[in-house]
């Protein structure tokens, strides 16, 4: 560190600190004005709140890092700093520390100041203190990683606009490829509902996914800490990798790069490939379903055009000459090779993927996601170790665990018929997503297309949806009474026809009584109900101040409707 370098940086420090302070103070002020209680935010506002924190922190990180390292884009300023008797390592450490201190010290100071006032007021308990510290650590790690990536982007470029463009690409590169993969595997039989949830690896997914359970005071500390630990580990990996990259980029960056738009001439091809390939694939897959009859032709043409246009655009930026861009076909050809190899692999896999149907003796059981029932799949609750509800269970995870359908003949009949007829030729196609459990212990998920006008299909669907196995896999309430410790503050009857609510009572006793009647009524429930009848009413059982609820359908032929 060379603190003397800061003698030149007074203005930079002041502007960075003021910028960060204005953002944080205005945001906190708005929050306080909106919420009369400091920790009374409704759960449905917590996620947007955490997203805003991520955006705010990211913007501050990009602004501060670019302000401190923008000197790399000025020949005059580069000559000034690089001619001083300071090694590049010390110079980097000094500017990096300046960048970091502005935000981190401000955040730490804010937290300590908050404690200073909150503790005497009796507003702090251990759980709250722990949450504040955990979320501060996550936020600082997130800030530092975004800072590192921005610095790296600025070392790769010679112009602030190119630097910010590269920064955007780097920050969201994993998200870009995740989107490409989503579209690549969006085959006709791909089951998005049962797809294995990818672990959060992109920076924003890790931070937003972890900060949400960490800050919520209605979640037990154990749940918050668990989310925090995993996210902190991942963010630490991100931080160290990005720090190594930005430091290496800075130390290896030639001073003369301030004259070019891209610092490392040898990196032109790599940067082009990194951007052209996913963007072209994304465009190709995005247009795939636009013109069904010619979809493959449209996909190929859009990939080629995108590759050429984006490659030329980038080459124009690198060489600052359209003429040079028009001459350089080598990188376009390399990009097209990579694109078409990827395309070829996915096309080869697609037919095999789409034609998969397990054999009868391979199948042990299965679960389904029925789109006509989809509204009710999400109302299953998580309980912490104290018996309090704190979140909804992921719909797919609940179905995988609780829906065990044994009627293999029904599903295999539907699957076989789906293979024989393209869904575009069906009268009334319905995408039924299936999770096969094989006798080997493995699982497969597929989407099959069922023509709802077919009588045989209707019969099979009734065999699938009618039994209790299906209902147990959709409604937690079908098998389970309200937990003894749960705070049932309201049981309501919502007449959907009249749009009228009737309060039936409160407490677990009332809820259990209603549940018994509802379960008896649900014996009637089958596919015909879903297909041909409308839900006439709903039972809503509200937990924990109304933050969470069970929602149960009532049809016209059920006693809960007839005797209302």
């Amino acid at each position: 560190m060379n603190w003397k370098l800061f003698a030149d940086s007074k203005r930079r420090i002041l502007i960075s600190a003021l910028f960060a302070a204005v953002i944080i103070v205005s945001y906190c002020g708005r929050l306080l004005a909106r919420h009369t209680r400091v920790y009374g935010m409704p759960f449905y506002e917590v996620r947007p709140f955490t997203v805003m924190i991520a955006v705010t922190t990211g913007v501050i990180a990009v602004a501060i890092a670019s302000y401190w390292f923008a000197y790399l884009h000025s020949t005059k300023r580069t000559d000034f700093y690089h001619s001083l008797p300071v090694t590049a390592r010390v110079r980097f450490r000094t500017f990096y520390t300046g960048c970091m201190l502005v935000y981190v010290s401000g955040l730490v100071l804010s937290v300590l100041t908050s404690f200073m006032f909150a503790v005497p007021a009796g507003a702090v308990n251990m759980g709250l203190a722990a949450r504040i510290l955990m979320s501060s650590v996550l936020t600082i790690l997130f800030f530092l990683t975004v800072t590192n990536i921005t610095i790296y982007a600025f070392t790769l470029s010679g112009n602030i606009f190119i630097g910010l463009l590269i920064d955007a690409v780097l920050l969201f590169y994993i998200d870009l490829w995740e989107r490409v993969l989503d579209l690549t595997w969006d085959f006709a039989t791909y089951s998005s509902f049962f797809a294995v949830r990818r672990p959060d690896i992109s920076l924003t997914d890790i931070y937003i996914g972890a900060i949400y359970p960490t800050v919520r005071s209605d979640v037990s500390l154990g749940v918050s800490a668990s989310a925090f630990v995993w996210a902190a580990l991942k963010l630490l990996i991100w931080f160290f990798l990005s720090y190594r990259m930005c430091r290496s980029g800075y130390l290896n960056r030639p001073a003369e790069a301030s004259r070019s738009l891209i610092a490392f001439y040898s990196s032109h091809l790599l940067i082009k490939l990194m951007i052209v390939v996913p963007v072209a694939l994304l465009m190709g897959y995005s247009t795939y379903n636009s013109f069904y009859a010619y979809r493959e032709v449209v996909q190929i043409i859009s990939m080629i055009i995108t590759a050429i246009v984006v490659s030329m655009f980038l080459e124009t930026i690198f060489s600052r000459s359209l003429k040079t861009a028009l001459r350089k076909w080598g990188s376009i050809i390399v990009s097209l090779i990579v694109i078409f190899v990827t395309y070829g692999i996915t096309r080869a896999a697609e037919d095999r993927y789409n034609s998969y149907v397990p054999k009868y003796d391979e199948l042990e059981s299965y679960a389904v996601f029925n789109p006509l029932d989809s509204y009710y799949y999400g109302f299953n609750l998580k309980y912490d170790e104290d018996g309090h509800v704190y979140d909804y269970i992921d719909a797919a995870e609940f179905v995988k665990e609780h829906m065990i359908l044994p009627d293999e003949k029904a599903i295999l009949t539907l699957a076989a018929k789906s293979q024989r007829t393209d869904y575009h030729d069906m009268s009334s196609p319905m995408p039924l997503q299936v999770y096969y459990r094989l006798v080997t212990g493995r699982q497969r998920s597929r989407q099959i297309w069922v023509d709802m006008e077919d009588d045989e299909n209707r019969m099979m669907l009734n065999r699938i949806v009618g039994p209790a196995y299906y209902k147990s896999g959709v409604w937690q309430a079908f098998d389970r009474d309200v937990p003894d410790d749960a705070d049932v503050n309201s049981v309501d009857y919502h007449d959907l026809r009249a749009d009228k609510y009737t309060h039936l009572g409160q407490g677990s006793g009332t809820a259990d009584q209603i549940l018994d009647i509802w379960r008896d009524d649900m014996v009637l429930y089958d596919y015909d109900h879903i297909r041909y009848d409308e839900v006439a009413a709903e039972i809503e059982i509200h937990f924990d101040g109304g933050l969470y609820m069970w929602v149960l359908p009532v049809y016209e032929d059920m006693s809960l409707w007839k005797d209302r």
Partner: protein
Amino acid sequence: MIELSNITKHFDDKCALNRVSAFFEEGAVSVITGTSGSGKSTLIRIIGGIIRPDSGVVIVDDMPIYDNVATQKRLFVLPEKPYCPSYESADELAHFYMHMYDGFREDLLKELVDRYGMSMTGPMRRMHRDARDLLMLAMGISAGTKYLVCDDLFTSMDDELRASARRMISDARRNPGTTFVIAVSDRSILGDIADYTYELEAVR
């Protein structure tokens, strides 16, 4: 002594310097001349340790210059358009250099400022560019370094300022005994103060 040995430098696919060798004696004023595009500024930056050559080496008092603090403390570099934070005054910049160079002579700077009618107060952005360049030359001389490597500050100066610059260099050679390596487009700009002249040819 500053010694250059087979310095080669390319920018993208253009060759700026091709196997340039020279040595600059202590206590002398060495002038590098050449046409526009001959690589003078590049060579000055390489000598100053700002740019690393593709091949070859710059040795200052038996030590390489690039990223070497001990050697860089012996050198003060003035590029063609020296940067000075526009919101700072000359006084503040001088204090900054005092932190960087242990031998910075505040008394010498004051003497030069008084002698040549310059100002130390007020933001430097308000100064005329040529006057600012002359002030930067005074800063460089006052830094107390053994060598002062300077790109062409002089071509754009008017005759009066140029004469002041020549006098400043000539005096500094005696006191404090600075060695100068200066790049100019035309040798005659510096008159007869140059002890040695080197001509750089553009690489075709």
